[in-house]
């Protein structure tokens, strides 16, 4: 028994207790770090999914290179069956107030989804100008007879070259031009009621 020494700490040996408190705090912080990261990641994903649900965030969305620039020069033939005038870039500068330029096709399903919103805008007096992309004239005319015609002017871009000059990568795409003919906004995808209310209406007001 006598060979068991007393266990009281001696001077010079590291003392456990208050001295190691900062080390313990650091360990706790390190243990909490993954949890914090997971919370931040979760919040980020939630915001993304919410945005995708309401249509305010599109992960495939790409900003247009033409925003802030004038429309590229073009002169497209009319769709005779629709009885609308042809459409050239020189028409844009002549129009008063902001206008919408909509690329669409009769074979494009989202175009059917957005059509009521275009009709509504045109009824309210907003100038909606159409460019019919890679379509057959007869099909385009049938589409307008069935769903209504919101366009003030309509050009046919059957080869799709004018669309490439605008940086279009799929129909429908909608551009908003101010009264000076400068492109201010581009939406790739259907103009849903949400897009109409949250984006187009404020923009029309701002550029009126």
């Amino acid at each position, binding site marked *: 028994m006598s060979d068991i*020494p007393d266990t009281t700490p001696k001077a010079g040996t590291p003392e456990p207790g208050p001295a190691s408190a900062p080390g313990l705090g650091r360990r706790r912080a390190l243990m909490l770090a993954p949890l914090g990261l997971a919370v931040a990641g979760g919040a980020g994903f939630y915001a993304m999914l919410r945005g995708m649900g309401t249509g305010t965030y599109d992960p495939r969305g*790409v900003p247009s290179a033409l925003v802030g620039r004038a429309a590229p020069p073009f002169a497209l033939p009319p769709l005779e069956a629709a009885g609308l005038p042809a459409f050239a870039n020189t028409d844009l500068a002549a129009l008063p107030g902001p206008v919408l330029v909509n690329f669409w096709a009769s074979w494009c399903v989202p175009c059917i989804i957005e059509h009521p919103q275009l009709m509504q805008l045109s009824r309210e007096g907003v100038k909606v100008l159409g460019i019919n992309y890679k379509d057959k004239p007869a099909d385009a005319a049938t589409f307008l007879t069935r769903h209504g015609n919101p366009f003030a002017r309509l050009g046919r871009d059957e080869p*799709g070259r004018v669309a*490439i000059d605008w*940086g279009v*990568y799929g129909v429908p795409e909608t551009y908003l031009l101010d009264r000076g003919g400068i492109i201010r906004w581009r939406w790739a995808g259907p103009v849903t009621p949400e897009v109409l209310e949250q984006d187009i209406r404020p923009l029309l007001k701002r550029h009126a």
Partner: protein
Amino acid sequence: MRRLALTLCLLAGPILGGGALAVGLPSEMLRDPVQEQRARDIGHELRCMVCQNQSIEESEADLARDLRRIVRERVAAGESNAQVVAYVHDRYGDFVLLRPPFTLATAALWGAPFIALGGGLAAIFLLLRRRRALPAAAPAPLTPAEQARLAALEDDSAR
């Protein structure tokens, strides 16, 4: 012999060329093989905006086919590679370039490897310094009580 060389060249083409080519139709290709090769090199640098993860040379999308045709028209018209790329870049923006340019928005993208490398080197440096610092701090000499206990333990084990 010449026929063998030609066969080998034809076999090597798709292997060395790497990556699938959507330009299957001879009518899409340029007659001049040098120009066609240039058009392919340009096309491999341009993103297909529809599929987004393929170049226009690899994509079957309509828009990619249209852009392949435009690239070939411009190459045949005598434009330089940079001019052809600028034509497409002008319309579709930075995203169309599979090798994004260095801008404020892409600084993190281009900088990430260097940040990772710097972080790794810093971690190695700190670890080595700590490891070197450890043996320098020699353990404190045993106290008389500890020496006594050690002797007692050695006595025990000797028995």
